[in-house]
């Protein structure tokens, strides 16, 4: 898909590519909100239901991660199906690490049959990060090839090998990730362009804390006209503590955390600063955690408000990792509640 005309040509009889809630919200011109739900390291469906209850009504769709950081968790399809039962609209994440093209296509068919309508196509973290570093990785395809395959199944009614599908095609609203600050930074807008060319209908970016750097990236994206061919959702996430902020700044590839934000987080914990661990009572620690979290949420709200001003940003993707409770105050605080109903 290269422009809006072809997008309309490829649309289903209902006028949508997939007709997912996320697609309808974005196509109606609303500022979209997506969140993230990490499946448990168990077969406990209740965990999904509890997390779903925290997110319901506060976002247009929820990403269900796929063995995030290469740690075995409930499958994204299984967890997404439960989330769907709970009244959420899932974005099923799919990585290239664990499956070859046969498995990916059969999973796409199964996922669609279960009622899933959004897919986020990812390369996937290397397995050396996770709890099975001895595993053989697959990487039969990369994320760009996966996007193209999902688009071809939907738009051309063919499998990757070129054989036609025998019956209904899976009609997914196709997402992809963008890492604006990973290396080489100059190439990142072009790589996004390749994803759009391959068929990405929406983009969710890596966490943005440095709005200025992101603005520069978006300038280039606009110059390439990509914002008119895909919906770009900027990734945001509440900081939990100064330690977490510093860890992200120093250890996580592709994330820029300005010093000013770390200082703000430190300032939030100032009343308890300079004291040793033993000197702090349980109540002190609890109060400090709350202060940090409030500041983290406040920063996140401000980031959303700034990102919203950038031309070409169609929404935000809130990644509150194992902190789903934070989504509600963030969405409310950013004035994005209630979520629009588009039929």
């Amino acid at each position, binding site marked *: 898909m290269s422009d809006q005309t072809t997008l309309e040509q490829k649309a289903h009889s209902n006028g949508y590519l997939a007709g997912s809630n996320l697609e309808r919200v974005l196509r109606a011109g609303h500022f979209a909100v997506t969140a993230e739900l990490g499946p448990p390291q168990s077969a406990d469906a209740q965990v999904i239901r509890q997390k779903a209850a925290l997110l319901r009504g506060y976002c247009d769709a929820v990403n269900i991660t796929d063995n995030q950081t290469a740690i075995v968790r409930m499958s994204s399809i299984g967890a997404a199906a439960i989330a769907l039962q709970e009244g959420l609209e899932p974005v099923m994440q799919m990585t290239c690490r664990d499956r070859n093209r046969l498995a990916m296509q059969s999973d796409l068919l199964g996922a669609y049959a279960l009622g899933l309508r959004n897919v986020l196509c990812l390369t996937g973290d290397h397995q050396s990060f996770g709890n099975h570093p001895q595993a053989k990785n697959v990487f039969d395809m990369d994320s760009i090839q996966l996007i193209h395959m999902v688009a071809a199944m939907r738009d051309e009614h063919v499998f990757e090998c070129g054989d036609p599908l025998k019956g209904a095609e899976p009609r997914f609203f196709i997402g992809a990730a963008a890492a604006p600050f990973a*290396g080489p930074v100059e190439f990142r807008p072009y790589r996004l362009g*390749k994803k759009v060319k391959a068929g990405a209908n929406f983009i969710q970016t890596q966490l943005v804390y440095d709005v200025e750097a992101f603005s520069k990236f978006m300038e280039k994206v606009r110059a390439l006209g990509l914002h008119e061919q895909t919906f770009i959702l900027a990734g945001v996430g509440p900081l939990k503590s100064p330690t977490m902020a510093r860890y992200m700044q120093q250890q996580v590839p592709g994330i820029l955390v300005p010093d000013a934000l770390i200082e703000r987080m430190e300032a939030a914990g100032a009343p308890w600063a300079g004291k040793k661990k033993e000197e702090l009572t349980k109540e002190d620690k609890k109060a400090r955690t709350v202060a940090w979290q409030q500041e983290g949420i406040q920063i996140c709200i401000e980031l959303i408000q700034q990102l919203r001003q950038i031309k070409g940003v169609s929404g935000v993707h809130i990644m509150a990792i194992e902190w789903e409770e934070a989504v509600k105050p963030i969405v409310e605080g950013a004035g994005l509640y209630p979520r629009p109903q588009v039929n």
Partner: protein
Amino acid sequence: MIVAEQKPLQEIKALISNAQNVLVVGCGTCVTVCFAGGEREAAILAASLRMSTRLDGKPQEIRHETVQRQCEWEYLDQIAELVQQADIVLSLGCGIGVQAIAEHFPQKWVVPGLNTTFLGLPSEQGVWVERCAACGDCILGLTGGICPIARCSKSLLNGPCGGSEDGHCEISPDTPCAWQLIYDRLLSMDKLHLLMEIQPPKNWRTSRDGGPRKIVREDLRLPTKEE
């Protein structure tokens, strides 16, 4: 070259523990230049095994010999007699050498003394790095002579992924990001347009995924007797 490294002595001792006469066979080609299984290493290993088994109170007869290439029949013919005299052959060749000996001397038990590691080159003295995955369908012409199959941790054809930072791969600060290297090289050669094309999914049939591989060159084959 094929790069290999020697197995730990204890593992080697366990592999030959049931034999009285052991023949250590070195190889004069790749494993010689990577200092893993040449004449010198064969002699050192033989001496180490002789001493070690003697200290254990169960001395074994350990002889050693090195051939030019373990992976060609004519070189193996030269050690036929020594092989027959031994109870076990400890090959210091790559995995190909071990299998060639097993195939050429079907009555003889052969064990490996090396772990065959990769196809690569010495980047500096004492350091070897992987360069080729022998995928059977070379794309180096698209990537400026830097192989993403062998050198990108995820073998991406449309890299770099989001894990590339400061020129290194997400798996380790010691691992250069192959796609950063490709980007830098194409940029310096004014060929960045090559990166703008989407590379389709790779046909892995030419790689190991299509099953064991074989090349037949009719122009080089010897005529059969009937001809």
